[in-house]
């Protein structure tokens, strides 16, 4: 009987191993990447570890969806859900709706990786979401954003 339990444990472990390492999968906004990533009017970026080494990141995913009111509404709804997992929130809210947001999520990945979501609804009617995972902290990210802004 003991052997039987040992075997079951082994099978359970074998089944659970592949589930590890999907930190971003717990976020609602990822549904937006899946739904709109390959659609017309969208630009989706995913960067490799190699390319991100200079920025202290391990994962970079972003999506910009143009002129899609439904997508904006969905994004705002998902952000409202995901921000419950954030430990730092900085937002711009207009008429009760989030138009811009910065969220540092509670680290869920191993080795103390930080996770960030950046969100923006532009005046042109497009919505952008950036998801970042890496060793960089919030100061590093702000510096990086200023760097891109001034470039």
């Amino acid at each position, binding site marked *: 009987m003991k052997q039987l339990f040992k075997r079951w444990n082994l099978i359970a472990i074998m089944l659970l191993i592949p589930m590890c390492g999907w930190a971003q999968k717990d976020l609602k906004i990822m549904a937006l990447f899946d739904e709109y990533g390959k659609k017309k009017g969208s630009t989706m970026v995913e960067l490799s570890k190699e390319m991100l080494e200079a920025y202290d990141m391990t994962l970079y995913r972003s999506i910009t969806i143009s002129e899609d009111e439904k997508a904006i509404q969905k994004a705002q709804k998902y952000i409202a859900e995901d921000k419950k997992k954030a430990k730092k929130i900085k937002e711009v809210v207009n008429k009760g709706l989030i138009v811009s947001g910065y969220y540092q999520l509670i680290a869920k990945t191993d080795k103390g990786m930080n996770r960030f979501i950046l969100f923006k609804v532009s005046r042109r009617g497009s919505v952008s979401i950036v998801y970042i995972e890496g060793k960089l902290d919030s100061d590093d990210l*702000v510096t990086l954003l200023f760097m891109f802004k001034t470039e």
Partner: protein
Amino acid sequence: MKKIDELLDKYFEGATSAAEEQQLKDYFAQEKEIPLHLQAYQDMFVSLALLSDVNTKKEPVTIMKPVLTTIHRHRIFMQAAASAAILFCLTVGGGIYYHSKEAQQGYVIINGERYTDKNLILSCMESSLSEVTDYPEDVLFLEGEYQE
């Protein structure tokens, strides 16, 4: 006795029925006082009776059925479970491998078209980062202001 003589004649003419032949076999097998002129046929009919007995008697056939003990069942179940687990791991693992390989390379999808050009990817990354900081209000929120 006359009847046996007649049956014998018929037998050697090949005109006896199966029942008549059985009658002859029974007679020679069971009769204790066989007349002298018939004794010559006794051995033959007794042998025939024995032979037909051997042919008609069917030996019980033993069918060997596989016996499934509890251990066997457990073993089969465990093998099936292990196979399912391996198949699952291969499928999920393959998916992860594909996904991680894809992530290692990096890509950008613009209007449904996929590109892996490094410069294009980096320029899209820059534009998406500048996109999320293109409001004047962002300067405030980046500096730590919180508006609601």
